[in-house]
């Protein structure tokens, strides 16, 4: 790696250092904007006992769902885990632990984690099972929960375009959790559809500044659609 050139040439290299028992934060919402190839590489390497932080856990046979097939995930922190029969089976049998987290709280946990804020207060979840065991405090007459932030050993991110400096832009709603995940990994790996020439990305339009990114790789993507809905 020379200077700010963060490009790596293989997926093996992209995930070098990922080990059993680590925490991986993943971008994506449903199957939209998920780091497909990085997930597949985790499967190929057979890394186990992972804690995965992601809004969802893929579907059977695609996305993070593929890591369930060989029981590589021991814990998931997510807001919604439906649409996945294998996940349900492993949850009911106790093979996998799930920590359900409100979607906005999950996003803020990642954002705060990346921003060096250890915890924050939110009204989300007050009076619900999410509040169990958590500190609540009153501000201006309203109760708020203390939620701790999240960081990961690795963050895996799907971008649209990047330059070799690691500046990234996302396409449409494939942005979702990706820029938050990108800030919260000790090692952040971004896979993109295109690596462009330096200077091609407009500095005012960058979603993820390169300082957050450690490794960049260019891949090809299936981009599976979960609910194809067209105008009748």
């Amino acid at each position, binding site marked *: 790696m020379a200077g700010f050139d963060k490009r790596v040439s293989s997926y093996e290299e992209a995930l070098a250092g990922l080990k059993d028992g680590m925490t991986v934060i993943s971008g994506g*919402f*449903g*199957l*939209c*904007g998920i780091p497909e190839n990085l997930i597949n590489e985790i499967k190929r390497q057979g890394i186990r006992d992972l804690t995965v932080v992601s*809004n969802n856990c893929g579907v059977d046979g695609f996305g993070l769902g593929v890591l369930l097939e060989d029981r590589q995930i021991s814990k998931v922190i*997510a*807001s*919604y*885990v*439906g649409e996945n029969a294998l996940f*349900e089976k492993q*949850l*009911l049998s106790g093979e996998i632990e799930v920590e*359900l987290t*409100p*979607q*906005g*709280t*999950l*996003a*803020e946990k*990642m*954002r705060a984690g990346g921003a060096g804020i250890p915890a924050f207060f*939110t*009204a*989300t*979840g*007050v*009076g*619900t*099972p*999410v509040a169990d065991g958590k500190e609540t405090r009153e501000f201006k007459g309203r109760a708020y929960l203390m939620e701790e932030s999240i960081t990961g050993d690795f963050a895996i991110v799907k971008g*649209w375009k990047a330059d070799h400096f690691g500046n990234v832009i996302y*396409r*449409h*709603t*494939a*942005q*979702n*959790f*990706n*820029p*938050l995940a990108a800030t919260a990994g000790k090692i952040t790996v971004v896979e993109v559809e295109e690596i462009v020439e330096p200077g091609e990305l407009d500095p005012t339009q960058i*979603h993820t500044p390169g300082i957050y990114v450690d490794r960049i790789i260019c891949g090809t993507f299936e*981009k*599976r*659609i*979960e*609910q*194809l*809905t*067209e*105008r009748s």
Partner: protein
Amino acid sequence: MALSREQMAQRVAREMQDGFYVNLGIGIPTLVANYIPEGMEVMLQSENGLLGMGAFPRVGEADADMINAGKQTVTARTGASIFSSAESFAMIRGGHIDLTVLGAFEVDVHGNIASWMIPGKLVKGMGGAMDLVAGAENIIVTMTHASKDGESKLLSRCSLPLTGAGCIKRVLTDLAYLEIDNGAFILKERAPGVSVEEIIRKTAGKLIVPDHVPEMQFA
């Protein structure tokens, strides 16, 4: 006659105002988008990071990178913006959404809502519902008044784990439009042909019935 899903959506749409930013939940709330009054401009927010959700794409034009929170392929209307999930929930939590419409299993006279978890059944998660009910001032819950077995869903106290506490003020069921105030449901309107007696019978929580309860009108 109980309201159809379409009629429920139609009734909720009358609560829209020109210039509103609105978040619509999955199910009946989604149908509300079809009944926004002519000449009124409303911006729909989808919590995966889209403000200004447009129509479904034309056949063959769906884009995997362009979805709503229900994971359906959608388009963005003119004036739309797209952003991260943290930004999206900053809008929601920060009280910037003018109206939120969502479904529920139960609501009670204290404004509590239960919509995400049935103990003993598989729990799939709350998604963004807890953030939405905690953040919005103006929420309308849409649900059937009673279960298929006739059990009321409008209770003195929710029996299921809560999605939010003390945050619901308005409920539209297939039988009635009600407001919640001061520890009671207040019957404001009834579905066409539905008697006040039927609503009383199917409401388990304290219900205040004014002298005159107008019937909803549908074109």
